Each structure stands twice: as C-alpha cells, then as structure tokens.
C-alpha cells in the first residue's frame, strides 16, 4: 500500500479502514493517523481488539451527516432499486440497459444528469401518443364549453357566440390522426 496521509491532519496514516458494501464493488476507505483515530473514538484508550463500530460508521457517513445538505453531486445511489422490476441502479450502470418503463421514475434523480450528458436535454418535446393527443383535444373542448356557458350566464352574448363558433370549428376538424 502506498504511504497515505491522514484525512484529518497531514500526519502519516497508520490506521486504514475499509468498509465493503455488497461484495467489493462499492468500497469506502478511511485513512487516519493514530492520534486522529483516537480522537474519533476508533481506537479505544485501553487496548482491546475491537473497534468501535458505531464510531466507524459515523465517520464513514460523516460528510453527509454534519455538513449541510449537499446539493452538489450527490453520490450515485447504487443500491436504488426499482419497485416494479427489481432492477438495481448498480445493475443499470454495469449493463447500460434499464429493466422497465418505471425505472425512469425510480432512478429519475440520477437519470436526469445522465440524459443531460447524452442529449443535452431532459424533457421530451416531440410527438405525443395518439391517446394523449385525443385527451388534450377533449380537455380543450370541455374547457371552451365551460367558458361559453359562463359567458352566456353572465349575459356576455358576444363572447359566448365567439366561443360557440370556435367550438364548432374545432369539432369539425378531424380527430387527431
């Protein structure tokens, strides 16, 4: 192992801890000098063979806990799992293929920056499915009819007539293909 410096001061690190998450793919390492290790309760004052696990975990998770919420580049949540198909984000990273349409929601926060890198965009602006186009048209007509009724009720007949013509015109045009 190359000589490493303590992560807390510049002394030579003599205590090396490795946390292994799921096999050995995601490894987290901590290197410190003896003095800092004691300060963080990693080495008990009396000599015993045990390390304080709680203190170790606190140290490993440390930066996330005591600094303010980190808006910049959160670590990729490799363990994130899609509730629908069971695909782990880690598997997607390894294979490059998603497991089901719901993955786009389950992994949204990590996919968005990826899409930005691939497409320089995150939002679809192209064709909409037939089903949505039909739905949009129905909603628009419904809205116009409501406005027409309101105008008639308010005895605003000029507006009501204009809206009626607009509705007729829209109804006459073909359904979206």
């Amino acid at each position, binding site marked *: 192992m190359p000589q490493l410096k303590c992560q807390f001061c510049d002394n030579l690190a003599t205590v090396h801890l490795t946390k292994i998450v799921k096999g050995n793919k995601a490894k987290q390492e901590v290197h410190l000098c003896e003095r800092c290790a004691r300060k963080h309760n990693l080495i008990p004052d009396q000599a015993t063979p045990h390390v304080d696990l709680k203190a170790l975990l606190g140290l490993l998770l440390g930066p996330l806990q005591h600094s303010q919420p980190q808006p910049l580049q959160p670590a990729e949540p490799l363990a994130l799992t899609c509730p629908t198909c069971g695909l782990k984000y880690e598997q997607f990273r390894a294979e490059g293929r998603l497991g*089901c*349409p719901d993955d786009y929601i389950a992994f949204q926060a990590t996919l968005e920056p990826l899409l930005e890198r*691939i*497409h320089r*965009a995150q939002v*679809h*602006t192209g*064709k909409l*499915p037939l089903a949505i186009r039909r739905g949009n048209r129905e909603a628009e007509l419904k809205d116009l009819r409501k406005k027409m009724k309101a105008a008639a009720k308010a005895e605003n007949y000029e507006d009501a007539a204009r809206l009626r013509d607009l509705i007729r015109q829209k109804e006459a045009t073909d359904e979206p293909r």
Partner: protein
Amino acid sequence: MNLDSLLPNLGEWLRGTGPESDVVVSTRIRLARNVVNFPFTNRATHQQKSEIAAKAMEALTKAELPYPLEYLDITNLSALDRQFLVERQLISRELATVLDGPRAVAFDGQECVSIMVNEEDHLRLQVLRSGFALDEAWQDIDRVDDAIEARLGYAFHPQFGYLTACPTNVGTGLRGSVMLHLPALGITKQIDKVFRALQKINLAVRGLHGEGSRAFGDLYQISNQVTLGKSEPKILNEIREVIQTILQYERQARAALLKERKQDEQNRVARAIGTLGSATMITSEETMELLSAVRLGIHLHLLDDLPPTTVNQLFIHTQAAHLQKLMGMPLDGEERNAARAKYLKSKLRELGSTR
C-alpha cells in the same frame, strides 16, 4: 412464407431511383417503442416475451395500414433465412443471432416497412426509402406508429417521452439514417475530415450494417444521436442540412476527379469490371470495393449501358445468404468465394451480350 420469393426483388432500399440517388442510396427512419405494463425485453421472461409477441401480432394484423404485412416468427427461421433478412436490411443482426426467446418481424411486400418485435425494445418500427427522402419516410412511419398505437398502448412519460430500454433512445425514440455512397471523397482523402466535422455536431457515422460495422464499398450511414429534447422534424432537419453539405462535397470531388484524372478513373473502372468478370475466387469485401468503382463509373458516365440497378443487384446477390440461396445449397467461405466469382462472371457476360 417462402423467403426465396424475395430473391428476384431488389427491395425498396436498393431500388436505386430515389432523389439524389447518384450519392444517396437510401433513407431509413426507425422508432423505438415499448408496450405499456411490461418489462423491457432484456428483463422480460420467456412468458412475457410470448405475450408481447402475441399482442404485437394482433395489433399488426388489425392495424389500419396501407399495405398488408407478412409476420414471421424468427425462432422458426433457419440461420440462412435470418442472415438473408439481415442482408435485406429487414432485421438487425441482434434480432437474427444475438437475442433469444420469442421474437418476430413483420414487413410489407415492397420491403418499405419492417417492424421488429422483441429487439432491444419491444417494437422497432422502420421505414426504408430509396434515395434521399426524409420527409416521406417520416410521414410513413408517423402513420404506421399511430396505427399500431391505436391497438397497443405505448410506454410514455410526459417528461421523458417514449420510454426505451436504453436512455440513448429515450424521447422520440427516433433514429434517422441516410446511406451515402462517397467514393470520390475517399479517393481524394477528404472523408476523415468530413467525419470529424460530423462527430463535432453529434451525428454518428457507421458502416453498411450499422453499429460497429466497417464501411465497405464506400458506403456510410449517417444518423442522429440525440433523441431527447428536439422534435422529430427538427432532428430530421439537422440531418438533412448536413447531408446536403456532404452531397455537395462529394459532387465537387467527383467533378474534380473527372477534370484532373479522368484517364486514371477510366482505367480503375475498367479494371474493376475486368476483375469482377474474370476472377475465379472473390470475397464479399473485394466485390463491394469493385462494385463501388463500377457504381462511380456509371454516375460519371465512364461506362455505357450499365444501369445503376444492376450494380445494386450484384451487390445484394453476392452477399453470403443471397448467394447460397441462388446456388441452392449451403456453402462454406471458400466455396462462397468461388460461387460468387462464378455468379459475377455469368451475370456480366449476360449483360455484355445484351449490350
């Protein structure tokens, strides 16, 4: 269906008569679509893939399409038939050999439209057009897409668009590609410059059979890479503008060849015809290279009486699966090289005698 019945036809992409066909061989647009409420193909069970294939078949049979489709179960096809469909650009190599489980293809008699089922995405719709015809191809595929969707719900998200197995296809799911024959840019060594410029603006360059394939016979496919954040017409317009520029470069290079080294070119074309008509063993790669010279010769009017469609016929018929079907027997590599040479010799002799 007996696929041998397709053998005498050239198929839409090799018709050789579309707009700008001196440089543009064909235009292709594909759309990636997935059926709602199913995992993507790579994560679907055998059972789920069967269900998707059954749904797709029903939708395709009932869809209001301008032409009837032939539906083929890939798993029932021999390796030779699968390769034959790859050579005709009706299915991908992945669908033919890499993927497993229930999968299918549907296509029309003109070989304009093909729909692959259980490829990387549940549905891969493709429209082929001879020559430079992005608008026509888009109109066609847009209609086919709607007709299928009317029978089959697609996986779609308001923000991400059409959802695909690979995030590189999400959004429009559209890949437009134009196949170009660029021999003069190759001869004048300008081709790399063109491709470097293309990569800067996010267009991909591929060989004849798509991703990872080598460019044989000066044939290149140019396609968009971005599928999200732009409308389909905008994506196609960006391709169109670039192709128009490349077209100009290729034509300028051809004009320069004629002006500066016509004799050399005449010599090269004559030798190409000579080799094609007299070799006794010839590989598919060499055939493509020589046919590229012949094709250029035709468009530069260095050859009389040879229609471009002949080159296209020789081009497709000398590919491995076509050749074996024509000869009516399985052939190994060496045997194919001999059979290919024999076929070319007899075809060119036939053409010579009718001239």
